[in-house]
């Protein structure tokens, strides 16, 4: 049994510089984080993650790979494996995430740590399988039905596909919650340099034999099957020991309150942002962006600065829980706030709740937003 809590372990890849694809880096980050169970179903543009796992996992001791019959079965297998003690991951795209949502809700309700990677493509429905988009922001946040909090991370580089996947596993284990890595086709299929560290800091779920697995504290300890705990795991409303309480309003209210609070109370630890080019007290233009689009916004900001505009970027590395504090802190310092994203304004509406005068720039034609068009829009 691995000890619970933080631990530093040697990385699986030899330390050094690698030239990798985003999807491959995601798989390698998972392996570094201790992922020992992967189940998936082919879907463009996430398939390369599964292919990398199929090559790598069976050669590493104690790690399991399986291709399931569909996405519903994939996440179901993850939850079963997680309760057997695994650190489990699957990878998909928008249509596959849709199929996973019911069991994602089950994982939230049963406080099952797991990682779902969504390499977004243009939708709705089959849409454009090989074209980038960022249209799953709200599907990832609210798709499962019911009231809950979960964690969604949005890497902007191949390096972050590696390191944010490590962070996704650690957050999943720390808070007993599913974590979604929300990539996009642009990042998933991009190739660039990754610097792999010699050691990886990982968090392992805490165990406490005999303790209540679903209550008694914010994040209860999590035993595994086969440890003699006589576990009652159910997606129905349950008390601290897992007994179904499907007509008890106090148990339902307390459970939902705890599931929400155990995430929202730790926003400071979970929600990561990066402010770039924002040193001045006053800014002419502030971009708020995430994922691939943040790369274009960063480039646009640098070029606008060359032309004398004080332009900066607030990059949302964690999408959910939303970076309310960072937006509230930075936005009032800017004369204009622009939220570019490859959708019709899913993050924009979150920003506008805090900064009503923020404006959006959208593209939903299966093409990435370029720095040039952002510069033209600002000047125009």
């Amino acid at each position, binding site marked *: 049994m691995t000890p619970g809590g933080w631990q530093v372990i040697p990385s699986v890849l030899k330390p050094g510089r690698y030239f990798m694809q985003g999807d491959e880096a995601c798989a390698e980050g998972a392996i570094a984080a201790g992922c*020992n*169970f992967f*189940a998936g179903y082919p879907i463009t543009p996430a398939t390369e993650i599964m292919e990398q796992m199929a090559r790598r996992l069976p050669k590493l001791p104690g790690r*399991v790979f*399986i291709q*399931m*019959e*569909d996405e*519903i*079965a*994939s996440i*179901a*297998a*993850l*939850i*079963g*494996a*997680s*309760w*057997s*003690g*695994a650190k*489990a991951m699957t990878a998909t795209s928008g249509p596959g995430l849709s199929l996973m949502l*019911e*069991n994602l809700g*089950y994982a939230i309700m049963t406080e099952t740590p797991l990682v779902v990677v969504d390499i977004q493509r243009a939708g709705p429905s089959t849409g454009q399988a090989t074209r980038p988009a960022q249209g799953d922001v709200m599907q990832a946040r609210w798709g499962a039905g019911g009231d809950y909090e979960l964690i969604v991370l949005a890497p902007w580089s191949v390096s972050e596909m590696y390191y944010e996947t490590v962070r996704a596993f650690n957050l999943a284990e720390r808070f007993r919650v599913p974590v979604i890595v929300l990539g996009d086709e642009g990042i998933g299929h991009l190739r660039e340099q990754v610097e792999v560290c010699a050691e990886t800091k990982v968090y392992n779920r805490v165990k406490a034999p005999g303790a209540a697995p679903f209550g008694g504290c914010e994040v209860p300890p999590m035993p*595994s*099957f*086969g440890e*003699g*705990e*006589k*576990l*009652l*795991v*159910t*997606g*129905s409303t349950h008390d601290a020991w*897992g*007994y*179904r309480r499907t007509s008890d309003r106090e148990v339902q209210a307390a459970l939902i309150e705890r599931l929400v609070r155990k995430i929202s109370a730790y926003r400071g630890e979970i929600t990561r942002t990066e402010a770039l080019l924002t040193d001045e007290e006053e800014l002419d233009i502030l971009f708020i962006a995430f994922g691939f689009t943040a790369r274009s916004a960063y480039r646009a900001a640098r070029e606008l600065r060359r032309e004398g505009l004080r332009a900066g970027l607030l990059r949302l590395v964690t999408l959910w829980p939303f970076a309310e504090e960072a937006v509230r802190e930075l936005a009032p310092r800017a004369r204009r706030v622009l939220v570019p994203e490859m959708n019709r304004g899913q993050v924009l509406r979150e920003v506008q709740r805090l900064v009503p005068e923020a404006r959006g720039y959208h593209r939903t034609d299966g093409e990435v937003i370029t720095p040039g068009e952002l510069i033209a829009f600002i000047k125009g």
Partner: protein
Amino acid sequence: MKPGTNASIKRMIRPETFPTPFCPGCGHGILMGAILRAIDELGWDMREMLFVSGIGCGGWIPSPHYAADTLHVTHGRPIAFATGAKLFNPRLKVVVIGGDGDMASIGGNHLIHGARRNLDMTVICANNSIYGMTGGQVTPTTPQGRRTVTTPEGNPERPFDLSQLLVAAGASYVARYSVYHVRQLIGAIKAALQHPGFSFVEALTSCPVQYGRRNELSTPTAMLEYFRDTCVTIARARTMTREQLRDKIIIGEFIS
């Protein structure tokens, strides 16, 4: 204490969860006992077992009544959950229990793929030919012509023969008995548990409340007598004509 007796299997349940939520006359209680008796007669340790079940009355057989690890999951998906749990911890003795709606309708894909994959687990389908919990709707195993709340004029569709479906899909042990044939049913569950690979037991159980009363089988005994009079063994079926076998249910071990 003699294994398989009421006194012996008492330690395998959580007494605080009784009485069960099942309706009077429901066959699931007989099946719930048959599974425990089979495990007890084999001398297996409940601490090494994992029971996975989905949504519906059948899903409530192990959860929360069995004093073991139980995983009560989304509708139709228990085999997929069990696949992950078993793959990561092969020492677990995994038993999946669910109804015909859960396994043959919404979960049909996982059922056939589980059989094809032939992972070592035992799947027990509590087949009562009806969605009991939601009030008596038609399922893929409701016989043609039978009345349900969603087929008030009689079921126009043909049912699955679940056992034959599982044989075709690659399950390596397949047996069917009813809760009337409880000794044979316990024997089949024991054989299935001991079988390495994907084993499937179709347990025909009675639902007098949601199924029987709309089909002239409204008492618990009428339903059990229906199984007594309708089920024929594989050996006897071989001596019967196709015409004689119409409306009969063949019981026994189809593959072992």
